[in-house]
């Protein structure tokens, strides 16, 4: 099948090519553009949830779906469990992942209630070693704008960490899971049961 460009399409693409060439820093490598694209879609989804302004339970459900779609959940769960993950059985790992996913959705979903009327904008992406750092700014009602940075794995193509004004999610969650384990004197099964209720 042959494809014929109409004059308008040709003109349009020529114009956009010229624009891209004229923009400094527009020459993103394919994967850098992909990382940015992922965060663009993620942010659009979050913004849609914020705008819809549903009930808290519905927002948490939406947020869990967003996490599953865009985040490298096995990595985040494994990091949060830390060194204790080495003594976990396959069944415990699976149970932990499931409980952790719900916990993250509840914890962050509740915070996103505060975002109603606000929005997130993507500023740009840069490559750091084997990851892409995508910086965004959150504009919330009645609050000074703040920075949220997503880290997207080069290999996984999903985000595995985010920094909210310098606060590292992976480190925060590993500290929290560690504290939950300490409270249960290192009993993994008891901690997983707690986690299913937490957040």
């Amino acid at each position, binding site marked *: 099948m042959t494809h014929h460009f109409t004059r308008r399409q040709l003109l349009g693409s020529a114009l956009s090519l010229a624009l891209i060439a004229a923009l400094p820093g527009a020459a993103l490598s394919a994967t850098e553009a992909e990382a940015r694209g992922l965060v663009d879609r993620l942010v659009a989804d979050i913004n849609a949830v914020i705008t819809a302004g549903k009930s808290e339970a519905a927002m948490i459900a939406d947020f869990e779906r967003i996490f599953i779609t865009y985040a*490298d*959940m*096995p*990595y985040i*769960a*494994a*990091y949060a*469990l830390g060194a204790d*993950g080495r003594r*976990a059985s*396959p069944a415990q*790992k*699976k149970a*932990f*992942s499931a409980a952790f996913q719900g916990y993250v959705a509840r*914890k962050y979903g*509740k*915070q996103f209630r*505060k975002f109603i009327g606000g929005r997130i904008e993507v500023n740009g992406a840069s490559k*750091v*070693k*084997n*990851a892409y750092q995508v910086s965004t700014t959150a504009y919330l009602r*009645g*609050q*000074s704008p703040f920075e949220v940075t997503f*880290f997207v*794995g*080069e*290999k*996984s193509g999903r985000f*595995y*960490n985010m*920094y909210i*004004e*310098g*606060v*590292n999610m*992976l*480190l*925060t969650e590993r*500290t*929290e899971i*560690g*504290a*939950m384990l*300490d*409270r249960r004197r290192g009993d993994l099964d008891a901690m997983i049961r*707690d986690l299913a209720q*937490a*957040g």
Partner: protein
Amino acid sequence: MRIPMAVYLTRARAGVALAGLLVALAGCSVPGPGEAPDGIHDPQEATNRRIHAFNKSLTGGAGQGGGVIAAIPQPVKAGVTNFADTASLPQTVANQILQGRLLRASRNTLRFTVNATLGLAGLFDVASPLGLPEDESDFGETLYVWGLPEGAYMELPVLGPSTERDAVGRFVDLFTDPLYYLLPSPDRYYGTGARVAAKVIKLDDYGDQIDALMNDSADSYAQLRLIWLQNRRFELGDDRAGGEDYIDPEALDTEGF
């Protein structure tokens, strides 16, 4: 040349204060290798935890009992917050000059002038939409810029999380507010009062998040310490004291998760 007595006294006082400061900073503890896992250096953890328990008992009802503050109309709250910010600007400017950040100091001088006049004595923030956004500083930041180490983490009674360096900074800031020396007696306390009120309003605005952190986390002391330290270093642009620089997205066995 004869030095006037008043100037001499001021200088003498400054000299004593500086000496005291240096003694305090000499006590800033610097972690040895491996003594600060995840970038946390907290040799006084047991004491800090006791203070944390005390602080927690104070904020226990903050979220729930905050109905009074929540009932204050938003414009009133904004007025108090703006006034507090304007009143704190001379001190911010003084610190930014000490830090050698002259552009930011002059921007804040302009912000002060605009808000103190067009903003009706600081009640309205007309400078932000004009491209002069809020930009705060303190003596803790000045000490950071001067290259002093962060020191150990500490939780102060009532005031909350800090580091040895920031605690010294807070102490110095108590005595170095230019407005305090420029204004006559009753007026000089308005700024301080507004600042306290603005803190209370801010605490109430973030009531849900603070409640979640204090009451829902398994170890609120460890969470607050980690979050506060990371955020403070981010504010300062401090990457010297940080924990892990880079988290590798592939250097982890995710089998089974």
